[in-house]
């Protein structure tokens, strides 16, 4: 019980941070909007996506990519708290040890809810449409959020190892970039060289993007959603205990 209350208290504190650093929020939202516009109007014309309009192909990719980018806020925020002595303060209090990390990752997830809403809004303005059921769309959002949440814990591990703001940010982006660009988020996997397809087809970003795409477009999702959830839970099961252990050993 104590862990739940403490997590809620820390989450509330982190949400206040988000609201009070509008510049962070602005950059975090401009980036996906810019990607959407760039890909729809600049690269889109050159990319063939059989059976789907490009904007409908792209938006699930942007959505997944953004929840992943959102998680890097965990790395930055945690590294900042480490350097500014807040973590020492928390660790000297008789509070639940897991609450600092859980409150941090949860705050990112809450932010991702807003960012998903924003992307759907911008997407709709440039031609994105849902072609599946409402339930499918909600499931798609849930899958993307869970995926971002799982990666928040990976970034928590990064911050606890690197312990320095710029370093944690760069290290997180090094994880994010290959996963996002060597995936089916922006271009069909079939257009890539054969050896790369082995990776891109099965890696978690592609699986998650594929799920979101199928669920929002009403096409057959097959085992993709289950595979994505399994990836997320697997990543969580590894990263969360590792992060808590690193936190205890600081």
């Amino acid at each position, binding site marked *: 019980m104590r862990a739940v209350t403490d997590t809620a208290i820390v989450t509330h504190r982190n949400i*206040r*941070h988000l609201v*009070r650093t509008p510049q962070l929020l602005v950059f975090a939202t401009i980036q996906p909007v810019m990607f959407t516009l760039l890909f729809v109007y600049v690269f889109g014309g050159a990319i063939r996506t059989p059976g789907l309009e490009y904007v409908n192909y792209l938006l699930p990719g942007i959505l997944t990519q953004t929840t992943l980018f959102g998680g890097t806020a965990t790395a930055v925020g945690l590294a900042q708290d480490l350097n*500014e002595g807040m973590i*020492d*303060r928390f660790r*000297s209090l*008789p509070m639940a040890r897991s609450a600092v990390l859980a409150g941090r990752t949860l705050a990112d997830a809450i932010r991702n809810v807003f960012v998903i809403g924003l992307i759907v809004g911008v997407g709709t303005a440039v031609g994105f449409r849902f072609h599946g059921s409402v339930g499918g769309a909600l499931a798609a959002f849930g899958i993307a959020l869970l995926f971002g949440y799982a990666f928040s814990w990976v970034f928590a591990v990064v911050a606890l190892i690197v312990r320095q703001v710029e370093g944690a940010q760069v290290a997180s982006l090094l994880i994010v970039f290959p996963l996002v660009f060597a995936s089916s988020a922006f271009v069909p996997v079939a257009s890539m060289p054969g050896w790369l397809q082995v990776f891109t087809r099965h890696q978690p970003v592609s699986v998650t993007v594929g799920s979101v795409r199928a669920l929002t477009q009403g096409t057959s999702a097959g085992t993709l959603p289950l595979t994505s959830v399994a990836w997320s839970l697997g990543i969580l099961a590894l990263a969360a205990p590792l992060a808590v252990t690193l936190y205890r050993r600081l």
Partner: protein
Amino acid sequence: MAATPAVEALGLVKHYGAVRALDGVDLSVEEGTVLGLLGPNGAGKTTLVRIIATLLVPDAGTARVAGHDVRSEARAVRAAIGLAGQFAAVDALLSGRENLVLVGRLYGLSARQAALRAESLLERLGLADAADRLVRGYSGGMRRRLDLGASLVGRPSVLILDEPTTGLDPRTRIELWEIVEGLVRDGTTVLLTTQYLEEADRLAGRIVLIDNGLTIAEGTPDELKERLGADVIDARLRHVDQGEIALAALASLATLSPPGGPAPTWHAEGRRLRIPSAGGAATLLETLRALDAAGIEIEDISLHRPSLEDVFLTLTGRGAGDA
């Protein structure tokens, strides 16, 4: 039989790779007293304090705070302590009030209790007017007071202050001292680390000097000053290469200090010769004659009561602030 000390550490050892930050330190703070932990940068003060605050696990040795073991009963220790650090761990993006409420809630207070506690602390620390401003707009002194406030939210029986006034202006420093003195009057035990001898002299009933991870002296400020003998002659030489010659010239002076007592020391970095003097003004005269006869050029010389600074220089061979 004396009561259990509020803080008790036995044989604490902590290594960082090949560096022995702590090399078997004992420490005991009686309830309701202030212990000043004094030492140069890198002496091991912060490591020791972090172990006692449960932030760091020692490689060997034990520590108990308010009767609880820092390793096996860390949570009970955390409930008993308040920690104010040298880097003012307050949240810049929250207001002063929000900071204290946050800490209060994490101590397990209800929202209402936490709000009341925050209110009374803001009042006590003179932050009531700034309570609802974001901390990023606070001055250094205000941050430090808020940090102290955060450490008091849980009504700690043991307050740990890690260099509480480092970098503060003299006026703010005195304000903080007065707050700490008030807490001690109310029965709080304080463990204080500092580089400022003046601070230890004013606040601490007992002082532990540590250097290179070892306790090198312990006692009341007066006892430590006693150890140096009555007075100190402080001479600055013109030429750094005359230090050893001067020591040799003084070695033959019997009246300098009692046999087995502290000997004159030479500190090349300030070209300073420190001479414990049992004979007061007579010794000063003899010292001047001996140095003059040896051809030593003196820039200035003085005779004064020993300060903690002298204790420090004599025992560690360097100043408190030197790295």
